[in-house]
């Protein structure tokens, strides 16, 4: 499983943080070019690959690829 956050698409709405049932995401201090504070993965191990973050993101900024192991890509 690999989680990718496309920072430049993010608009800081916080849906991924709010709706992740396992609380994998949290707010970061990283700001993208448009000035939005993007989320970050705070606990990758908790991820159950439900895919809700991928679905909930209105900006297509999160890609969850299911598979072996647990990775994070920036």
């Amino acid at each position, binding site marked *: 499983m690999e989680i990718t956050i*496309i920072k*430049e*698409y993010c608009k800081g709405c916080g*849906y991924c943080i709010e709706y992740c049932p396992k609380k994998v995401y949290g707010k970061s201090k990283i700001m993208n070019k448009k000035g939005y504070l993007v989320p970050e993965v705070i606990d990758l191990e908790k991820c159950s690959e439900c895919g*809700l973050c991928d679905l909930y993101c*209105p900006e*297509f*900024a999160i*890609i969850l690829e299911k598979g072996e192991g647990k990775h994070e890509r920036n």
Partner: protein
Amino acid sequence: MTAMAKETPLVHPLVNQYLRPERMPHLACPGCGIGQVVHCTLNAVAELGLTPLNTVWVQGVGCSSRLSYALWKGDSIDAHHGRIFAVATGLKMCRPELNYILFTGDGDCASIGGNHFIHACRRNLDVVAIMFNNGIYGMTGGQVAPTTPLGASTTTTPHGNFEAPFDLCKVAEAAGASYVARWRAIDFKPLTHSIKKGIRIKGLAFIEVLLPCATNFGRYVLKTGDPGKVQKWINDRVVTLKKAESMSPEELKDKVLIGEFVERERPGVVESYQSLLKRLKEV
């Protein structure tokens, strides 16, 4: 690091396959549910095997429509405010073999486009119409819409809305649409399922989607700019059809029902006209 910098920017696989990556990020405000609905639409399109070659997106004017314009990798027809059903009638009657997905808003569909919407349902035009209901005119800055609740404060009803809203799903049902449903943008599975059904069913599929507008509805009506709070306001007002069965009329008074209201596949204008042409040929 140099090699990585020269790579094309990473895009979501759905964006790569069905949208124009150069048009991303799209225009919606932070927290706007329109992106989620587009995501559900792309899921439905992918699951049914539709392609940019055989599917046309038609949209109107407003947040709902501006987002989807020139976003779809295939043909993208953006009509005047309220006229998508009329344009789609011309398109579908001439090229009935293509699939048409229409995106409209509460102002575009219920207000200026009301007449065309009613007649498209009457004709049971074989298209899918997804209406984004955020209860306000978003793009023009927060004016009252035909779906804005009574008493709400907007830029054109600063003393409170003195007109009652109406239920578009009931209008679609009365006018004759084959399939009518209402969901929230966050109801991913049922919404994707409805869009898939809408594409497959013969006749007009009208899917109303309730979604939060923090920028205008939130600010003017609910006095908050937090999309999460606007979403919560929506969540508190919706009731599924199943749950509504066990509720009294008083309990249902200010609630909005979500679910599939109508499913009655029957031929529409395209089929009627095709059989008319066939009949004349045989004479």
